[in-house]
């Protein structure tokens, strides 16, 4: 019964979405307030029905109802409860249901919190949002129904892919989807603005919080995925330039560019057309990401199953929205009026520089990700484009971008004084150069580029502090004045400085782990000790245990530094009976922001165990940096101006229905 209710709720949500996709649009064209208002209630009810559908699927998983094909394929009665919840989205059908759930959540949020939007804009935005929703409801109902029943229900399920039975999986997909799908709001706003043929600074002010929220979730989601790959896949790498990773990086780069260009539009009423284009592109790249990951054109842990009809269906959605969006853009964008003027050296100029480099970097990732697919389709040759390609193309674009960061925040709007800014950044330069010298002295000249990475990061962090100091006139005014200024400073200014510093923190982590990391891969006998970067690791023997739905074979190791015991490390292998599959669970030991990483290989006949032992200096900063970036975003999002700043339309009160 429950699966049927879930299925039916999804069909009802589709019905509501079809109404929402058409009626408010017609209402906006006819200026009919009642028809436009309909979008609000359908958006909220749509969310209620999708949530009900999602709850139904969750209930099937929790009660291990193996008469549902999806549950049978991806669950097991012995699986811990938390993984019964997470396996709801640990498969293709369920994850698409999560996708539409989040889409409906965003739609309902616009409906509920968009009270200060002009009514026609709100109606159009909700209609566009419903177009997206409709296409994905059709996709789920026609090609990937999660509620299909089996005629003869089996007694036991086939278990979730063990590699996905991990707390990381619980958080990574929902966060990533919140990011991907969040950009749909920016897209809907852009399309609505093109339909109306009117756009102003207030538009940017409404779009920015949504983009910012999506960007924050995407940032944390990508970091979470990277950390999960780091500890679960067992080879200690944090970024593989795998197409599925690139699929999430591209919308992030476009979204970051969008955040910055929306600032120019909001403050100076310039770059309107470009901002609209970026809003379309950011969501298009999210759709391309969904297509790459879900269609089976790529082979990875994310491609749950290969089914050509699904791939073609998503490709159609892709062509419809990207093609439609860009065509509408080409047709209507010339109607939008040009905004304010600015000199090349100005805050606007710096933000254009930012956009130029971010979109170019995004383009190189796009080429590197899709070129192998295009080549294979074209002449059947198979190639792999890996880290060397991206190190050569992506990194050279990111370095000038980071170097320009502190300049950008210090330049004045309209016309800036580059020399004056450089003078104010003298402290940051000096500390950056000192950081380079210290790193050279400490680490030697073996890796020439690494000290410059650290120096650049120091420059960016100090640059962010200088920006804050300038704003509150620290050391120039009496301390009390600075204090009161600091308290009165807009939260978005703090947010900018913190997010920029976060990028630098990530850079330090990448530099540290990539250049000064050490590793040993050896076969160890019981009682044997090996050393790595000043740490001594002793193998104490193997132990066996039983887990809920797996068996554990663990190695016991003691880690010592200078004679004293630092800790015990227990890397293990888990064998899952239901699928006959083994996973490697690495043991991690944090020392400050550095980590020791131990993973277990084969156990040989003579009792020796193959191990991989890594020392990863500063590695935690990679993900901490991403968290700092997201914190900056959150602080900026809490800025009062973003919530109440947009001028309220005068007509609003007149349009509210009598109660």
């Amino acid at each position: 019964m429950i699966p049927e209710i879930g299925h039916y709720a999804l069909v009802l949500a589709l019905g509501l979405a079809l109404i929402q996709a058409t009626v408010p649009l017609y209402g906006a064209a006819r200026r009919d307030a009642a028809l436009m208002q309909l979008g609000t209630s359908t958006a909220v009810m749509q969310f209620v029905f999708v949530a009900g559908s999602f709850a139904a699927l969750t209930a099937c998983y929790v009660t291990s109802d193996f008469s549902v094909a999806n549950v049978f394929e991806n669950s097991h009665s012995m699986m811990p409860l938390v993984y019964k919840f997470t396996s709801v989205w640990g498969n293709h059908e369920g994850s698409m249901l999560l996708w539409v759930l989040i889409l409906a959540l965003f739609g309902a949020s616009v409906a509920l919190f968009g009270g200060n939007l002009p009514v026609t804009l709100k109606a159009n935005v909700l209609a566009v949002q419903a177009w997206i929703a409709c296409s994905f409801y059709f996709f789920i109902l026609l090609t990937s129904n999660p509620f299909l029943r089996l005629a003869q229900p089996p007694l036991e399920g086939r278990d979730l892919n063990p590699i996905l039975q991990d707390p990381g999986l619980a958080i990574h997909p929902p966060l990533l989807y919140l990011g991907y799908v969040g950009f749909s709001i920016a897209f809907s706003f852009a399309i609505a603005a093109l339909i109306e043929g009117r756009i102003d600074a207030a538009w940017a002010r409404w779009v920015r919080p949504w983009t910012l929220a999506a960007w924050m979730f995407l940032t944390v989601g990508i970091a979470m995925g990277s950390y999960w790959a780091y500890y679960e896949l067992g080879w200690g790498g944090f970024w593989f330039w795998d197409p599925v990773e690139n699929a999430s990086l591209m919308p992030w780069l476009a979204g970051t560019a969008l955040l910055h260009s929306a600032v120019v539009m909001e403050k100076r009423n310039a770059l309107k057309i470009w901002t609209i284009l970026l809003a379309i592109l950011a969501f298009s790249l999210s759709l391309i990401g969904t297509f790459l990951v879900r269609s089976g054109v790529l082979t990875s842990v994310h491609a749950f199953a290969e089914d050509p009809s699904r791939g073609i269906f998503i490709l159609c959605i892709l062509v419809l929205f990207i093609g439609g969006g860009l065509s509408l853009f080409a047709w209507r964008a010339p109607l939008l009026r040009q905004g304010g003027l600015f000199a090349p050296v100005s805050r606007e100029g710096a933000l254009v520089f930012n956009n130029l480099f971010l979109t170019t970097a995004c383009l190189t990732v796009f080429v590197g990700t899709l070129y192998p697919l295009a080549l294979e389709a074209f002449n059947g040759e198979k190639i792999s484009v890996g880290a060397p390609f991206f190190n050569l193309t992506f990194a050279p674009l990111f370095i000038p971008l980071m170097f320009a960061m502190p300049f950008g925040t210090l330049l004045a709007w309209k016309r800036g004084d580059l020399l004056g800014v450089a003078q104010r950044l003298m402290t940051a330069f000096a500390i950056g150069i000192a950081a380079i010298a210290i790193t050279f002295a400490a680490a030697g000249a073996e890796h020439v580029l690494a000290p410059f990475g650290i120096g650049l990061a120091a420059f960016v962090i100090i640059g962010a502090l200088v920006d804050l100091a300038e704003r509150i006139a620290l050391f120039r005014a009496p301390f009390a004045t600075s204090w009161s200024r600091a308290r009165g400073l807009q939260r978005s200014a703090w947010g900018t400085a913190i997010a920029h510093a976060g990028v630098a923190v990530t850079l330090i982590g990448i530099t540290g782990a990539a250049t000064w990391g050490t590793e040993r891969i050896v076969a160890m006998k019981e009682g044997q000790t090996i050393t790595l970067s000043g740490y001594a690791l002793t193998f104490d023997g193997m132990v066996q245990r039983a887990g809920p739905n797996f068996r554990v074979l663990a190695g016991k190791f003691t880690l010592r530094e200078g004679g004293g015991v630092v800790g015990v490390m227990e890397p293990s292998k888990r064998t899952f009976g239901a699928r006959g599959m083994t996973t490697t669970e690495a043991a991690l030991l944090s020392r400050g922001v550095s980590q020791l990483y131990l993973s277990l290989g084969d156990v040989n006949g003579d009792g020796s165990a193959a191990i991989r032992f890594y020392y990863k200096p500063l590695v935690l900063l990679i993900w901490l940096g991403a968290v700092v970036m997201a914190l900056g975003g959150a602080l900026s999002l809490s800025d009062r101006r973003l919530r109440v700043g947009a001028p309220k339309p005068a007509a609003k009160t007149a349009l509210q229905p009598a109660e």
Partner: protein
Amino acid sequence: MTRKQRRLTLIGGSLAVLGIAAALVLFALKDSIVFFNSPSDVVQKQIAPGTRIRVGGLVEPGSLKKGENLQISFKVTDGAHEVSVRYQGIVPDLFREGQGVVAEGRLEPGGLLAADTVLAKHDERYMPREVVDALKKSGRWQEGEMNADAHVVGKKP
């Protein structure tokens, strides 16, 4: 500056950055991509020694030999031809004789592949796509034998 001059500066700057990026991409595509080959390709195509390639197929049963210091050697086959592979390190969890594998490394004179990366499957139900295609090409693949899918476990950094 007039509006026109400003616009020209902007367009010129953008073109310069795009030009540099395009040059980098072309250079990188020439030098840092790796071609995939089936064992039959390796035997028939006369690939120059020292070339970095990927080879995919099944680990030939009975060919896996373990040596000192985690040295292993095995043969990758597509049913028609085979390539010997040498590797030092830890192989992925699902690396087994008779199973699909993708090895990446330099081809040595004599046709031996000195691999630095060995990729196997994520899941007992699926197989690297390259392997499926290589087997299909040599006619050893039965449709519906396995759900095709997978990769990336066991990358030696």
